């Protein structure tokens, strides 16, 4: 099959073991590698690009086995987290680099094409240090594509961008995926980047695949703390948090639903309203960029809820009634031991 296929990939480095990881990415589609820091995302990407040897498994690109090849012969457009732009070369020289290395006679023409495609014409004579973050990201993308890769590997392609800059680049990336028809593997921490680009998610934790597949199946998949946070669940309780809550009705509901790693309370599982019931009260009211967040205290437990509207409508100390939908609570798997 054309596209990128990983089969049983295992990478061991010192005390860290990654895998086995299997995934396949069809041309024109994207797979997002997700996971907490240290999960092995970047290790996997660097192993695919050829910078770390495999301990087991294979990597195929358009039906060609590439895991025995040096990086320069694998034909991956690899963009490292800091973009890897050459500081001593102008934008034009950066974009031209892969074409010059390959000794392409049409290097100048191809360079011009990619510079214009990414709207870099007026920046072509600048050095990377003279560019904004978004401009630097466009140069890195133009350069990766100028190499005419067979697949793209991008480590945090939209990191350190403001919301507006990210949306612009996301749109550009989506258009590109449609036109260049290459398989893309991206590492990201950002749920919205993953959601906008990727048809498949691979979630890693401590080197193991915790979830792989259609992101729509993620909500129903077994959760650990990372996945629960990734889904936007603010209220997670570890077994230690739940140790002293058995005396209260809400605590008992949580304990009944908890798994080895504790329990997550999705927003849909929690309802509350102002009113003097059950000894629960407002502990804090905070403004965040996403709106008001109200902390509700029930015994030793604190529940954070988001409140829409210009003012929160409650004050610290106000009594509230809190209810949990036991059926909507999600048990959490235990912590994954690094192997």
């Amino acid at each position, binding site marked *: 099959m054309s596209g990128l296929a990983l089969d049983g990939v295992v990478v061991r480095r010192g005390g860290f073991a990654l895998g086995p990881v299997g995934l396949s990415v069809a041309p024109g589609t994207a797979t997002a590698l997700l996971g907490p820091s240290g999960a092995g995302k970047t290790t996997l990407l660097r192993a695919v*690009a050829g910078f770390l040897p495999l301990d087991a498994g294979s990597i195929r690109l358009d039906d060609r086995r590439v895991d025995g090849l040096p990086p320069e012969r694998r034909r991956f*457009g690899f963009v490292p987290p800091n973009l*890897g732009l*050459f500081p*001593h070369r102008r934008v034009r020289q950066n974009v031209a680099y892969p074409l010059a*290395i390959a000794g392409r006679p049409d290097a100048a023409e191809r360079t011009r094409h990619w510079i214009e495609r990414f709207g870099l014409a007026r920046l072509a004579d600048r050095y990377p240090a003279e560019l904004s973050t978004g401009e630097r990201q466009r140069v890195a993308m133009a350069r990766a594509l100028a190499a005419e890769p067979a697949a793209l590997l991008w480590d945090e392609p939209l990191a350190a961008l403001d919301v507006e800059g990210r949306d612009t680049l996301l749109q550009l990336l989506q258009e590109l995926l449609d036109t260049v028809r290459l398989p893309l593997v991206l590492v990201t921490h950002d749920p919205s980047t993953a959601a906008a680009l990727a048809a498949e998610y691979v979630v890693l934790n401590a080197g193991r695949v915790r979830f792989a597949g259609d992101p729509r199946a993620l909500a129903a998949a077994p959760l650990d703390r990372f996945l629960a946070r990734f889904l936007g669940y603010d209220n997670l309780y570890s077994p230690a948090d739940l140790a002293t809550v058995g005396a209260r009705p809400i605590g008992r509901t949580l304990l009944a639903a908890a798994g080895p790693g504790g329990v997550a309370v999705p927003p849909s599982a929690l309802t509350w309203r102002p009113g003097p019931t059950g000894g629960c009260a407002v502990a804090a009211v905070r403004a965040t960029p996403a709106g008001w967040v109200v902390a509700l205290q029930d015994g030793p437990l604190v529940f954070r809820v988001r409140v829409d509207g210009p003012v929160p409508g409650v004050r610290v100390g106000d009594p509230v009634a809190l209810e949990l939908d036991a059926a909507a609570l999600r048990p959490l798997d235990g912590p994954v031991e690094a192997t």
Partner: protein
Amino acid sequence: MSAVDAHGAPRRRIRFGPIVAGALSASLVALFVLPLVALFGDAGFSGLVAAAGNRTFQTTVVYTLFASAIAVGLGVLTGVPLGYVLARYRFRGRAVLESVVLVPVVIPHLVVGLSLLLLLEPNAPLGRFVARAGIPVFDATAGVVLVMLYVGASYVVLSSETAFRAVDPQLVEAARSLGATPTEAFLSVTLPSAGRAIVTGALLMWARGVSEVGGFLVLAYAVYPSFPWPGPITNTSSVFIFNYYGIDPSAAIGFAAILVLVSLVIFLGVRLLDRTGLAWSRGGWFP
């Protein structure tokens, strides 16, 4: 109490940090400059002209530049790879190797000459081999270059090691992914990124070689024509000045002042070249 003066204007706060830093820096600059002022003052204009017109001295300057150019070339050729190895590889004995690189910096100059003499004298194993190969070392250019290499190459190693350490490995990985072989990535990314520091190291090495006396006194007091120096018989400038100091101190001062001027011109020239941009470190060189 408000921070305004009698007229109601904001009072300017005296900042002591820059004053202290300025005073300390100025005292060191004075230490560097004042002896030169004394040197040039003592030589006088006529003394400088006379020294510059001395044919024998001119030959020593040309020879010193000639020998130091060879030494710096060899120093860069061998020191840059060693700096790269120390910066990029972890291996047993690396700390020992780093200390070995520092030895020439601390060893007294006369000892350098003596050690090389013991190593290369015709009865020593290596000396026998060198003699059989027909390479004259004593009172010859090979000896001068060896001493310069010994006392100065550490600066090239140390500055290139620091520079290579500072090159982001992600740049090299990006280059490899874009189709560059390890050698191409080194030449097009790593080396230009470290270029400035290598030039500085080479300049330090050159300066160290030109200023050397002790090693030459033992190994190459006079320099007879031998490959690649076609002649005439000469000395390095430093030895020539050292000699003259015992014969005619005022003439020696004039020669010393001229040597300082030549060195300053070379320093300024390299710095200027660096500022206008060395073509290869600006990305126009390779590919």
